[in-house]
């Protein structure tokens, strides 16, 4: 099929894979990518539950560090997954 917009997926070269954990699950991602992207790629869009009502699921929304929906816990601190670089062995926990 003719594509006017080429598929570049195969032309993107990524760094090596590193392991990390999310809520105890062992996952892999690319070193240096955003944690939100790594979690997305690993199939984890549901990152936390909102602290009210029947605790609805939430995931990355603005990807710009504004909305705080992708908040996760790393080393006892709340950080935005979209603004966190993936490093080898990162231990990521749910906020609530």
């Amino acid at each position, binding site marked *: 099929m003719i594509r006017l917009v080429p598929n570049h997926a195969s032309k993107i070269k990524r760094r090596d894979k590193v392991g990390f954990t999310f809520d105890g699950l062992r996952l892999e991602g690319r070193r240096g990518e955003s944690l939100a992207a790594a979690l997305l790629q690993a199939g984890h869009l549901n990152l936390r539950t909102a*602290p009210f009502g029947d605790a609805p699921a939430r995931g990355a929304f603005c990807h710009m560090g504004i909305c705080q929906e992708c908040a996760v816990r790393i080393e*006892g*601190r*709340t950080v935005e997954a979209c603004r966190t670089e993936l490093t080898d062995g990162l231990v990521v926990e749910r906020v609530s």
Partner: protein
Amino acid sequence: MSYDIAIIGGGIMGCATALRLAEGGMHPIVLDQGDLGQGASGVNAGTLSLQIKRVQLMPYALRGHDLWAQMGDAVGFHKSGGYTLAFNAREAELLTERQTLKAEAGAPIEFVSNAQLRRAAPNLTQNVVAASYCAEDGYANSSLTGQYYRGRLQDAGIAYRTHSPVTAIDKTTAFELATPQGTVRAKRLLLAAGAWLKPVAAMLGVDLPVQARVNTVSVTERMPPLMSSVIGHATGLLTMKQKANGTVLIGGGWQGRGTPQDGRGTVASDTLRPNLALAQYAVPSLGSARVLRSWTGFEANVPDFYPLAGALPHVAGAYVLGCVRGGYTIGPYISRLMGDFILGQEPELPLFDPGRAYTKEPT
């Protein structure tokens, strides 16, 4: 239409006095330059602590606490108890001296041992040298002030206008108040404009010695349980409580910048930072909390730090009510006294003559 009384200022003082006056049969109107309860009444830290009330105001504060308890959930009232902490010998001395006098004035304050403190508040720093406790202490949610009094005014059928700054006051046989929405006429006038009292009184040619304090408050994101009581500091320069939703509110009267006249108070990092440091020193695990918001509120202040409550000097039919230091706690009660005074009744406790000499404390 002419009202029995026009009240300038829709904070706790103005609204609660209006309610008392309406109970007494008067028809008041409340005017606010913005929304109801958005000044000091709505942006203070919400602390209801007898331990930080002035000795002479204790009878008023005790009755104020009762009224807040009655308002209950609608204002987010929680009687959590409160600890006041001293971190060194000098502060311990201060704590002992001050809390003893407050206890003698009727506040149920006791001194607690370190062991008691640890059991009750395990997340506090180990560096506490002395501590006092008052079971009556607690807090309410000041951001609900506007919503609460709006409902009360509506239920009582009391007229109010928001976004209605008074730009001029003419006194003939009655008071004529110019506002952008038209002239309001009333037989009497109550100035309850908080930190804006000075410019408002100036429209009647009266110089009130009111200046504004610019108090800073901060709030964190939701945190796991860190404290179940209000935490204060011997100097009064820290108040802290964790709300039911997990957020931690940090105050203590650290001064930001700005003036009521220019309409904008701003947080100053050179006072915000030590305010937060003091909070972190008291509860070290608070260090990992993210601060979401800091803000300032303008609090009226006069040279002797006592309320203004009584007749406005030199202007018949005009009154003034402003409460410095503890206005949130005392407000609902002193407003009743003020209402009774305007209704021609003897207040249960004495008022504070706005025409007094401010150089020394009133007797």
